[in-house]
């Protein structure tokens, strides 16, 4: 299983999903009306490293984080 966590203001509890890649995750998250508008502006990290491409094979136990727009300081 892959754990998905939603950081900062997204305000949604983590979920666990059975997926092999980010395209499958995209399809799952797009079907959630609460999340849909966050997807366009959120970056994605796998095991705490931000990724820039979808073409990454996921392994059981991986953690994916969605990071919405930031503003420190």
């Amino acid at each position, binding site marked *: 299983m892959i754990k998905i966590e939603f*950081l*900062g*203001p997204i305000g949604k509890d983590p979920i666990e999903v059975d997926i092999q890649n*980010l395209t499958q*995750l*995209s399809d799952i*998250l*797009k079907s959630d009306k609460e999340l849909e508008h966050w*997807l*366009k*502006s*959120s*970056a*994605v*990290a796998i095991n*705490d*490293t*931000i*990724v*820039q*491409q*979808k073409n990454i094979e996921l392994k059981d136990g991986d953690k994916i*984080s*969605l*990071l*919405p*727009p*930031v*503003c*420190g*300081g």
Partner: protein
Amino acid sequence: MQYLELYNGSLPVEKITNNWYNDFKLSNYGAIITFVGVVRDENGIDGLSFDIYEPILNSWFDSWQQKAKKQNAIVLMAHSRGDVLNHTSSYISAICSPQRKVGLRLIDEFVEDFKASAPIWKYDLIDGKRVYAKDRSTAIQGAGLLS
């Protein structure tokens, strides 16, 4: 000492900046350049509030430390978690550098990248509620991968 410090609530500015000065004044850095961010009273807010995702903040900060090291400098940073009231500080950063010009350039680049990349989320405190500062926030490079 820790080069990256996180505090609950407002930052104890004098303590932090005095510690940095005392820790590094003997290290032969010719320039210690400090930036202190203070929460302004504007738009009817009582203050700001912050969430931080520490694992990615730590790796982002480490990459900046490496970048500074190549220029014989170091980066220091302190940031608040949770609520920070108006007229107090939520953010301090500093560059210690042998050369003033390198330090001034690095502090500018560091603060700009901090605003664009550090995984910290800001909320306005209005009537006891946290309101996400969406309009002042910046999407991290690569955002939209799942859209």
